[in-house]
């Protein structure tokens, strides 16, 4: 009880809630708090997420500052930005970044446009809506590797179905994926095929949430169907568009598996290299771990840059 006696003498000078209670009581309070008692529930996902995601990001970032390559252990003694400088000076990195940008803009805008067009057609009242909706969504159910293989066959320069049409029309057969001038367009086309259904469903949900009164009001005011959609309906799909665009853009940034499958493993793709494929090739084919990590970090920053406007938009809408 000696501790108790000493605290009592100083009680008047300090906050009793802080100093007047001995450490066992404090510990008991702490162990009984909601924070500690609920920890088995939030703690497990927190730890897994922390190690797997943020730990991974952190380790990747650390490696990107080293010169780690080949089978030696990484040395963290001299950390610098050399790999980032190397990437920016590297012709193939710049090409990949540019193609990635083209893929991002082309794929996202075409998918959104086509998806909106299909959604408006459906919304305007084509019968058998349910069936059509499913048909357009089906590509989404396929694995990217399967889609890639299908398109690889269709694009095949020798006996692919597209070239059968082309030669039947009297043209020379086209090497869709081999010709650097059109390979990227061919890839974008295949990706649009797979993703426009997704955009359509998002837009369709937005369209169907608009009350019929809006259409009737526009009609009584004298707007044609086209004008109604262009001036009244589509402007109200802002929220849906932003959501769909973010998903599509993020996919375009890291469309690794699709390109990996369609251009054949680690073979340097011809005109269709993007940051994700370049990163994997540098790291796992050439053993340039630090360089690959630097590319990965830049890819992450780009992804964050894509999400940021969306988060700001959501925040302004008051839903974040």
């Amino acid at each position, binding site marked *: 009880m000696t501790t108790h006696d000493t605290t009592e003498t100083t009680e008047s000078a300090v906050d009793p809630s802080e100093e007047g209670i001995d450490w066992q009581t404090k510990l008991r309070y702490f162990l009984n708090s909601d924070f500690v008692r609920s920890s088995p529930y939030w703690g497990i996902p927190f730890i897994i997420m922390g190690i797997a995601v943020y730990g991974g990001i952190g380790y990747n970032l650390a490696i990107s500052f080293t010169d780690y390559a080949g089978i030696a252990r990484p040395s963290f003694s001299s950390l610098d930005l050399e790999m980032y400088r190397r990437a920016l000076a590297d012709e193939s990195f710049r090409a990949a970044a540019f193609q990635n940008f083209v893929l991002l803009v082309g794929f996202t805008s075409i998918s959104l446009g086509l998806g909106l067009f299909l959604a408006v057609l459906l919304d305007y009242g084509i019968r058998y809506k349910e069936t059509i909706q499913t048909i357009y969504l089906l590509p989404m159910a396929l694995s990217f590797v399967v889609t890639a293989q299908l398109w690889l066959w269709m694009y095949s320069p020798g006996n692919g179905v597209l070239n059968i049409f082309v030669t039947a029309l009297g043209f020379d057969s086209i090497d869709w994926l081999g010709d650097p001038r059109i390979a990227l367009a061919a890839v974008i086309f295949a990706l649009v095929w797979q993703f426009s259904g997704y955009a359509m469903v998002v837009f369709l949900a937005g369209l169907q949430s608009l009350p019929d009164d809006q259409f*009737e009001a*526009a*009609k*009584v*005011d*004298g707007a044609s169907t086209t004008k109604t959609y262009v001036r009244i309906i589509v402007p109200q799909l802002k929220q849906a568009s932003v959501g769909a665009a973010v998903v599509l853009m993020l996919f375009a940034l890291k469309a690794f598996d699709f390109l990996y499958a369609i251009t054949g493993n680690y073979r340097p793709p011809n005109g269709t290299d993007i940051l994700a494929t370049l990163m994997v090739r540098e790291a796992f084919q050439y053993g340039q771990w630090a360089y690959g990590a630097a590319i990965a970090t830049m890819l992450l920053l780009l992804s964050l840059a894509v999400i940021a406007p969306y988060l700001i938009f959501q925040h302004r809408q008051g839903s974040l």
Partner: protein
Amino acid sequence: MARVRLENITKRYGDETAVDDISLEVEDGEFVTFVGPSGCGKSTTMETVAGLTEPTEGRVYIGDDDVTGLAPKDRGVAMVFQNIALFPHMDVYENISFGLRLRKYDDEEVRRRVEEAADIVQLEGMLDRMPAEMSGGQQQRVGIARAIVRNPDVFLMDEPLANLDAKLRVHMRTELQRLHRELDATVIYVTHDQAEAMTMSNRIAVLNDGKLQQIAPPLVCYNEPTNLFVAGFIGSPSMNFVEGTLVEGGLETNNFTIGLDPGRLSGVSIGDDVTLGVRPEDVHLTQYADSLAAPTDPIDARTDVLEPMGDEVFVYLLLSEAAEGSMDQDPATSPNQLLMSVTPDTEIEANEDVDVVLDRSKIHLFDTATGDALLHGLTDRSEREPGTTPTEADS
């Protein structure tokens, strides 16, 4: 402004008949309300006038023109919607001017007309607001301004007040009446609320099951309903109905008999079922009934539940012991119950035996089988046979 004529309008959706052979005429500058329960076809009928629905059969005329096949924009109509249907991404000015801008009016003309319309519905200084920043009442004013600005021949209003709260609804009711007077406009108004219909209209068109039941001025619908449906629908609380049988010398019901000469009723004979209708305010306690010129014989009753409303008290009367235990029945249709309305200073308690009389001049008789009115008022003096008053349904 113009008159509107519907000629044998029928609208079917597959096997469902939403509107069944409706013919009526709305005069130039008249305010006519389509009223009825939900699903009665009132909105569909209006949509055929607006051009949003094409009738399966029949013709629509606005002014002297057959507009049946015309698009809404070519009919000279403007519409106000229940859900207001403002365009949320446009500000008030853009909303009101949308129709004008589509028609390529020059900017100055658009601005002048928008400001004029905003002035009429008292929206000055709010033209740059977004709809989401406005109250429900203000939004509906924008909806009305959007209709006014186009200077239409006919205003169509589809339950425009239904989504507003009760207090605002009463306020907007008077606003709409003022507006009607100011614009001297032809208005067709749809509502399920009979109070709205009664207070605002020049004439009411009562619809049920897609059929026109009666079209007449509000008080004619109230005092001389053409059938059981109109009698029960117009007026709140609803009219009491007591089913009975026509006998020699009167109408016999479960609990009382009303004296009358059956010969005065055409279309029914002794032994036929006849329904007596009487409004709650025409049921009186015997001791307060001295001023009545023609009371019925006293009817024994027991008070059940009292509902003080402030300006009046609703008294639920049980006419026989059998009525007890059937509390959940609607007094308007239960043969052993009557709803009476008395003044608040009346001395009356629940579970009290009372004598009541009915005002014979306010008793309505209906053919139970067809629902058609047989007679309004049993006194010789004020006796009015249905059909002798000119109503649109008959002509």
